């Protein structure tokens, strides 16, 4: 059943935590405290929260380098995530993985991946394992619309179709892959139509509407648990910030971004909360709570130790 009115405020707080997490990272990045690249998910929070909240903790998930929202929504500890961004030993990967590889099997997060589309077969494999283990967990893979042109995407969809895997494929269509408008590089702009050609249940949803997102994934999960196989969900959204820090964003107009801001998920959920009777005070409280969570995580991460050099030799093999 759909998100209850009780859950919506919590979803709002979760989306705010993700938003503020990315804002905090941007500050740290500008202070030169973050190494490597950072691919913010600002503007795409509803896809992550709507999808992950339709999953059980034991359901598995893989995502991408733009995966902070996915990971936090699935239950990754905020402190561990923040510490990982700072390369601290208390990080979710002990500082070895960084921004692009958040992982926590305890919450079903099998891993964010820095290779486009590479995490899709991992989710499919977890779905296959569920079948073999005769368990009823499902697997969900997040990927961008640019990933549909990568070979392993295609191979995975065919395998998911012939084996009727309990798999949910969530394509986050934010219109761009890096600095390229995806309609220039993808023959079928509506990627869910390509997915349909494999005989997979396919649909498109408004990825900035957390309720629509939740409902679509919840239905797909129900089908998957019922042995009805894989569903492909194309979630239409928009990346409000650049592809990564330092992106000059010459490929799109200020107007386009300004317009997108009016339709962004947090603004919309905020409106919705008022519709269902939340007061400004209620909303302010949620925002304060999110602030506090991030501030506390930041404090934790900043005060944590960096790994000892020799730690590099650990965690190669089980």
């Amino acid at each position, binding site marked *: 059943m759909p998100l209850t009115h009780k859950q919506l405020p919590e979803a709002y707080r979760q989306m705010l935590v993700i938003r503020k997490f990315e804002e905090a990272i941007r500050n740290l990045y500008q202070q030169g405290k973050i190494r490597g690249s950072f691919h913010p998910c600002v503007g795409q929070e509803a896809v992550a929260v709507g999808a992950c909240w339709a999953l059980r903790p034991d359901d598995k998930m893989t995502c991408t380098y733009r995966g902070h929202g996915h990971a936090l929504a699935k239950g990754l500890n905020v402190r561990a995530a923040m510490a990982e961004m700072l390369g601290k030993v208390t990080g979710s990967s002990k500082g070895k993985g960084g921004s692009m590889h958040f*992982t926590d099997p305890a919450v079903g997060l099998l891993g964010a991946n820095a290779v486009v589309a590479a995490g899709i077969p991992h989710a499919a*494999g977890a779905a296959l394992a569920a079948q073999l283990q005769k368990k009823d967990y499902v697997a969900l893979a997040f990927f961008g619309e640019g990933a549909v042109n990568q070979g392993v995407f295609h191979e995975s969809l065919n395998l998911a179709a*012939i084996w009727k895997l309990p798999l949910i494929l969530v394509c986050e269509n934010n219109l761009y892959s890096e600095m390229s408008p995806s309609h220039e590089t993808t023959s079928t702009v509506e990627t869910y139509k390509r997915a349909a050609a494999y005989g997979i249940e396919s649909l498109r949803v408004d990825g900035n509407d957390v309720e629509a997102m939740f409902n679509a994934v919840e239905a797909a999960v129900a089908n998957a648990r019922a042995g009805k196989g894989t569903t492909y969900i194309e979630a239409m959204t928009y990346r409000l910030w650049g592809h990564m820090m330092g992106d000059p964003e010459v490929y799109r107009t200020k107007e386009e971004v300004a317009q997108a801001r009016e339709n962004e998920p947090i603004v919309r959920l905020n409106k919705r909360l008022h519709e269902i009777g939340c007061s400004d005070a209620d909303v302010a409280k949620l925002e304060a709570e999110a602030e506090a969570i991030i501030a506390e995580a930041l404090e934790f991460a900043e005060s944590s130790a960096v790994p000892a050099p020799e730690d590099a030799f650990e965690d190669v093999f089980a």
Partner: protein
Amino acid sequence: MTILTYAEALNEALREEMRADPRVFLMGEDIGHHGGIFRVTKDLIDEFGAERVRDTPISESGFVGMGIGAALVGMRPVVELLFMDFALVAADQIVNQAAKLRYMAGGTVSVPIVIRAQQGGGRGNGAQHSQSFESWLAQVPGLIVVAPSTPADAKGLLKSSIRAGNPVIFIEHKLLYNTKGEVPAEQDLIPIGKADVKRAGRDITIVSYSRTLHFALEAAEALSPKGIEAEVIDLRTIEPLDMDTILESIKGTARLLVVHEAHSNCGIGAEIVARVYEQAPNSLVTPARRLGAKHVPIPVAESLENFVLPQTADIVRAVEAMF
């Protein structure tokens, strides 16, 4: 003791591990109903069913990646690549994914997958079906690389690989499948990372593995009448390298020749030579040598392929040149 072919020994190892551990399952092209192009999975589908012996589409990245995903959630997939050459279409999943996921996750996940494939030349299969990739895969931290030369080692090492709990590249050789050998009935595990002295000798240490190990043994027999007694070491595991056994041997022989079918450039031979000069610089009376394929793609015509790949006669010549 029973006499089995290399392929039969592998088949037994798979059968025993699948009986012992319900987490073990197989994926690959034509491994099910057909029992594998090289018969390694023969009849396994009859005992374990199509669920655990899965025929796949021609989608190596896809099904290797799925093996990784299944391993991440506790299964023990054994994935077959029809030819090792096709590791190249699944290279991202093997090198960027299987080898690195645990490390990038700070040890919170593990990837207990075995990727099996036959490799090598000698059958005129041409440049895209005759390669040897152990030197490439040994460069990749996070991968264990195994390459048995006998039925007994094949069985014992495959069982150990399936239980290793980590990504193992299990290298078979297309021209070893029909070779026969004794396999102890009570054959159990052969440890990963342990080389085996297949022939004792005092005059020179020849290190090899897989098919060329047999060439090395032939060469040793040919050299014996000439008064040269070669010690022949079968690496069995390519990564991690068992340097102890090699260093121990050259203490006695003071001469070292490494032989492999893989190309010489940046090969296991070069690695062993470099390590010997690092770890036991004064142990040799003549410079260490290695013998690998000549630096060209593998040609089809017999006259060409036999010239490009190291043969027994080449080993004999190389050894004689060291005295």
